[in-house]
């Protein structure tokens, strides 16, 4: 048996961790980048911006992960995982930047695993349970359109690190929006049942849209996106009645705490451990 077999070398030379993907001591995703906060940028404000955007991304990625092994088709397993991974990647970079800007030097895991629900700043739409595929698609469409419009502006932010994170994120979010828009059209137009489910999903998402526009002034871009998609899908424009309160102020639905319990459970049970 002479097959070239990678398994045989698995345990060789493991003192040299660099041969692993990313190494094993990988803690700082911004390693090697000049992380000085430029003059004229309010560091505390920069940190707050990064945490809020990171929380949106992490909580969204967590919900997308719940679809894995439950998606309607294998192609959707791959696509939803891909979107979740993009958002998780954005969250990690943004948390790292926040830790540098707020002077605490906290790493990504300190933000993700050791804050309670009241400290999270994500918008409430991100934390709502997955619902059916129609709900997940309508939510993804709204959130990716909103985040994309905001990231396009952040790409010229005076902090070069945040600007770079946003520039990378724009390409990812454009794909997320396209994926959601294509499914919204298929489902809106497809069958009576899919149309009915889309209408119901729109109603469920609508109350949480006002909060998005309070956070960032990107209403025109988002409304234009939704108008285009609903027209192609044969769906009405959602009428939104904004709910009071805002996730950006730490006011959440009852759904965030259980999400965080699942996310943080093992890390908190073993605070001394390294993973």
């Amino acid at each position, binding site marked *: 048996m002479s097959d070239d077999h990678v398994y045989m070398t698995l345990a060789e030379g493991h003192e040299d961790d660099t041969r692993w993907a990313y190494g094993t001591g990988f803690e700082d995703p911004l390693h090697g980048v000049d992380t000085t906060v430029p003059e004229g940028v309010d560091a505390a404000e920069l940190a707050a911006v990064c945490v809020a955007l990171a929380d949106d991304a992490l909580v969204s990625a967590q919900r997308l*992960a719940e679809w894995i092994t439950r998606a309607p088709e294998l192609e959707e397993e791959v696509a939803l995982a891909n979107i979740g991974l993009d958002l998780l990647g954005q969250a990690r970079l943004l948390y790292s930047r926040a830790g540098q800007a707020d002077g605490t030097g906290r790493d990504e895991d300190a933000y993700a695993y050791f804050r309670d629900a009241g400290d999270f700043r994500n918008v409430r739409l991100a934390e709502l349970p997955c619902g059916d595929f129609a709900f997940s698609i309508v939510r993804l469409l709204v959130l990716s359109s909103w985040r994309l419009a905001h990231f396009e502006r952040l790409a010229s932010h005076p902090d070069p690190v945040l600007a770079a994170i946003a520039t990378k994120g724009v390409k990812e979010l454009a794909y997320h929006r396209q994926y959601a828009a294509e499914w919204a059209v298929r489902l809106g137009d*497809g069958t009576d049942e899919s149309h009915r489910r889309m209408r119901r999903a729109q109603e469920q998402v609508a109350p949480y849209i006002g909060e998005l526009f309070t956070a960032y002034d990107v209403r025109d871009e988002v409304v234009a996106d939704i108008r285009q998609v609903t027209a192609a899908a044969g769906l009405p424009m959602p009428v939104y009645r904004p709910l009071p309160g805002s996730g950006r102020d730490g006011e959440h639905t009852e759904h965030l705490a259980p999400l965080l319990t699942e996310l943080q459970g093992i890390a908190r049970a073993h605070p001394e451990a390294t993973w």
Partner: protein
Amino acid sequence: MTEQLQEHFDATISRDQRIEPRDWMPDGYRKTLIRQIAQHAHSEIIGMQPEGEWITKAPSLRRKAILFAKVQDEAGHGLYLYSAAETLGADRADLTDRLIEGRQKYSSIFNYPTMSFADVGVIGWFVDGAAICNQVPLCRSSYGPYARAMVRICKEESFHQRQGYELLMTMMRGTEAQREMVQDAVNRWWWPSLMMFGPPDENSPNSAQSMAWKIKRHSNDELRQRFVDMTVPQAEKLGVTLPDPELSWNAERGHHDFGTPDWSELMRVIKGDGPCNAQRMERRRSAHEEGTWVREAATAHAAKRMEKGAAA
């Protein structure tokens, strides 16, 4: 005519050349391949479940990203393999029905539960490792599309296996509780992993024909021995004990001697009585059934667009 085709087929196999989708092939060869490739595809898809449970619970964002990407790769492997089966005339929807109706099998290893995050590492090390042992020779399988799919799959599996082993090394350098978790996971997964190579050679009815057709290249027992020989030094380096008192180096054979897996357990799990058979099937069935309206909507929309395109 058939005789000539058979001669040509036999000659292609004996020259170690590949059979391609449009080539003539005996019905038995086609059926065996569809069965094997479908079973392999089903295993990738069901295999997403034991580890997929831990994506939302992973204890660091880096581990979450690694696991998320790994489970996504498995969905991708399932897709290539169903496509390879389709080159033989099978249909993905039909194969999926066969899986959820219990008419086709998947690897019985995925009927065991994952009890802690260490299981993610041990699955990477043992289960992906055993899969690689089984699959690397399949990169030279006589059927072209299968062999080519296996090249890519083996590369990704190797990456997963390294990630699993690296997780375990990190955990072994951590707290006492983490080391205990790793040892416990090793104890639970070792014997089921040895069973992944299938029943002993004298009791493996399909093997001889598959070897002759060069669909399969090595016997179950050969591959199992190889897995044990490779894993023993890795376990030593890691600092865990493999749960087999009979495991010892046999200098005369140049191989490790090891105990006999509980074959009655393998038969039980294959027949449906493993710890998680019902749960794995139920998840796959409910995902498929709950997705029916989505797939129907996509089909209806595509048909409407075709109609509009034809009218325009």
